C-alpha cells in the first residue's frame, strides 16, 4: 500500500517535472519565434522608420550614418519643406491632390458599384462580350492606352486640368474594381434583393438600401485602394498637369528635387513623411473592413 502511495507520488513528481519542462520549452520557443518575427518586421519597416527619423535630422547628418535617431532633432525640414521653392506652400499641393482624389474615389465607388451590380445581377444583350472586354481591359498594360488617351484628352481640351485624372475612373474605368465588386456580389445571396423587390423596391432602391450596405466591406476596400493609388500616382499628373499651381503632392515632391542644385534632403524626406501620412492613417483606420473586403471577395458563392 505504502509502495503504491510512493509510486503515485513519484509519478506525480515526474508529471510535474515534465509539465514544467514543457512550459519552459514553450516560453523559449515563443521567445525565439517572436524575436525572429520582430527582427524581420523591423528589417522590413526600417526604411520607413529611417524616413521618419531622417526627416528630423539636419542635411549633414542624414548621410553620416544608417541610424534613424536624429542627434539634434530639428523641424527645419518640415518648416522649409512646407514653404517649397515655388510661390505656393505644400498645402496647395495637398489641396490639389484632394481635388483629384475626392471626385475620383466617390465617382469610382458609385460607378463601379452600378456597373458591378448590372454585371452580377441582370441579363442584358451582349453581357458576356461586355464583361469579357472588362476583363480584357484589366489585362491590358496601362502604357498601351497612354498615347490614345492623351490624344483624346487633348482634343477634349482637358490638358492641364484635373479632369483626365479622375473622370475615367468616375465612369467605372477601373476594370479591376468592377471585377472585384462583381466577384463580391456573386458571393452574396440574392434572397435579400428578391425580398426587397417583393417589398416594393425598384432596382435602384434595392441597390441603395439593400445591396450597398451588404457591399460595404468591398466598397471600403475599393475606396482605400483608389485613395492610395491616386495619392501615389506620379505618371498621370506628370503627363497631364503642366502648371505648378495644379501639381498634386506626388509631383510636388519631385519638384523639390528638380529645382535645387544641392538637394535639401531633409525637406524632401519631411514632405515625403507628410505625403504618406494620410494614406497610412486612412489604411489603419479602415484596416478591419479592408481585410474583410478583400478576403470576402474571394469567398465562393
Amino acid at each position, binding site marked *: 500500500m505504502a509502495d503504491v502511495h510512493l509510486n503515485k507520488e513519484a509519478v506525480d513528481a515526474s508529471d510535474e517535472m515534465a509539465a514544467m519542462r514543457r512550459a519552459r520549452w514553450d516560453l523559449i520557443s515563443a521567445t525565439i519565434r517572436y524575436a525572429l518575427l520582430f527582427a524581420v518586421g523591423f528589417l522590413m519597416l526600417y526604411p520607413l522608420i529611417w524616413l521618419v527619423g531622417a526627416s528630423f535630422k539636419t542635411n549633414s547628418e542624414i548621410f553620416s550614418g544608417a541610424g534613424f535617431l536624429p542627434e539634434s532633432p530639428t523641424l527645419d525640414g518640415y518648416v522649409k519643406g512646407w514653404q517649397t521653392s515655388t510661390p505656393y506652400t505644400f498645402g496647395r499641393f495637398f489641396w490639389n491632390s484632394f481635388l483629384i482624389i475626392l471626385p475620383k474615389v466617390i465617382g469610382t465607388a458609385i460607378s463601379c458599384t452600378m456597373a458591378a451590380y448590372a454585371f452580377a445581377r441582370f441579363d442584358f444583350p451582349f453581357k458576356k462580350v461586355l464583361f469579357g472586354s472588362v476583363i480584357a481591359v484589366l489585362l491590358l498594360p496601362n502604357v498601351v492606352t497612354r498615347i490614345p488617351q492623351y490624344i483624346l484628352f487633348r482634343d477634349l481640351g482637358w490638358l492641364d486640368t484635373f479632369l483626365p485624372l479622375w473622370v475615367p475612373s468616375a465612369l467605372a474605368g477601373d476594370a479591376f474594381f468592377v471585377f472585384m465588386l462583381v466577384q463580391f456580389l456573386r458571393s452574396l445571396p440574392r*434572397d435579400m434583393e428578391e425580398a426587397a423587390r417583393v417589398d416594393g423596391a425598384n432596382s435602384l432602391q434595392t441597390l441603395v*438600401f439593400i445591396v450597398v450596405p451588404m457591399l460595404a466591406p468591398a466598397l471600403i476596400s475599393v475606396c482605400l485602394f483608389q485613395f492610395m493609388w491616386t495619392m501615389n500616382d506620379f505618371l498621370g499628373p506628370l503627363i497631364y498637369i503642366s502648371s505648378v499651381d495644379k501639381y498634386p503632392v506626388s509631383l510636388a515632391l519631385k519638384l523639390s528635387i528638380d529645382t535645387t542644385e544641392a538637394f535639401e534632403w531633409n525637406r524632401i524626406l519631411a514632405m515625403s513623411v507628410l505625403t504618406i501620412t494620410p494614406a497610412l492613417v486612412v489604411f489603419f483606420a479602415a484596416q478591419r473592413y479592408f481585410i474583410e473586403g478583400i478576403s470576402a471577395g474571394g469567398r465562393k458563392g
Partner: protein
Amino acid sequence: MARVQLRNLEKIYGGTLKAVHGINLDIRDGEFMVLVGPSGCAKSTTLRMIAGLEEISGGEIIIGDRRVNDLPPAKRSIAMVFQNYALYPHMKVRGNLAFGLRITGRPRAEIDAAIEQVARILEIEPLLDRLPKQLSGGQAQRVALGRALIKKPGVFLFDEPLSNLDAKLRASMRVRITDLHRELKAEGLSSTVVYVTHDQTEAMTMGDRICVMESGRIMQVATPKELYNNPANLFVAGFIGMPEMNLMDGAMEGGDFVVGSQRLPMGGDLAGRLSVRPQQVVLGIRPQHLSLADGGPALKARLTNAEFMGHEVYLHADCEGHRLVSVVGAPEFEDIGRREFIHLRPSFDSLHIFDRSDGRNVSLRGGSLAA
C-alpha cells in the same frame, strides 16, 4: 378576393429545358394550398413565378381578377417568406418590418402602428431593436413572417420556410402558421396561402389542399385525406404516407392478384371499384393496412428485419422479390415472436390497383381524380 389561378403555366430555361409543363391550378380565396414534391419538381419555380421573381415562359397567372404576368412583384398583392428568411442583415428587426411600408411611402405613424400590431401577434416585441444576426433561427423565422404579415397582402407565399429549423421548432412553427392562417381568416382578412415544401408531414398537416408535383407536372390536387386514401397514380401513392406504400408488380388473373408463385384473391369492395381491368398491374398496400395473419388469404413473406418504434413495430419482409413493410402493434408482434416466414394479410378495402402501363389508379373510390 385573392384567388390564384395558374393557366397553362410554363417555364422553359434557355429555350429548350422545360421545367414547368403547362400546369393548371385554381387556388381558392383563403385557401391554404401546399405545393409538395421531391427536389427538382419545379414547385419553387412555380412559386417564384407567382411571386414575379421568375419570368413566365407561357400561360397566365391571375391573382384576384387581375392577370399579373407582366406586373412586378410589388404590384401583385403578395408577400413572401423565404427559406433562409432573407432578413436585411444591416437593418434592425424594426427596420426589416418597416422596409416594405417605408419604400411605398406610408406615413410614419401608420408604419409604427403596424409594426406594433405585428410584433404583438408574433411575440417579437422584445426583439425589435436587434439585428438579424442576434436572432435565433426560430426568432428570425417569426420576423420573416412578420415582414410578410405587415404588408396585409392578398396572397402569402412560403418557400420551404421551416426547412432550416430543428425538428422540434419546426413542429411548433407548423402549428403557429396554421393558427395564424385561421385567425386571419376569422378576422375576414385575405389569407390565401401558397406553401412550398418537400416535407410531406408539413403538407399533410398544414394544407387545406395539397398539390403534388413531379418533374414540372401536377400529379394530383386534393385534400390531405383524399390524397392519402385515394392516390391518383403511382407517384402520389409512393410519395404520400409514412412509411411508403408497398408496391408490388403482378398480374390480375380472374379476380386474383398473382405475384410470383402466390395468388391473392381480391376481397372486400375492390372488385366493384375497378374502373378498367388491366392485365399487368401494381398492387399498392399501405404498411398500416398489412397485418399479421395465421391463415386465410395472405401473402407469405420472409421476415428480414423488425424495427421497434415504441408502440409499434415496422416489419420488413421479402415477398417474391418485393420488399414489404408492415406496421403492426408491438404486443401483436410479441405474440407472434421472431420467425423466418410470416403471413401478411392486406385490408382489402384499402388496397389500390394501378395500371402498370400508365401508373393510373384504377381502383379509385367514386372515380375521384386529379382536380
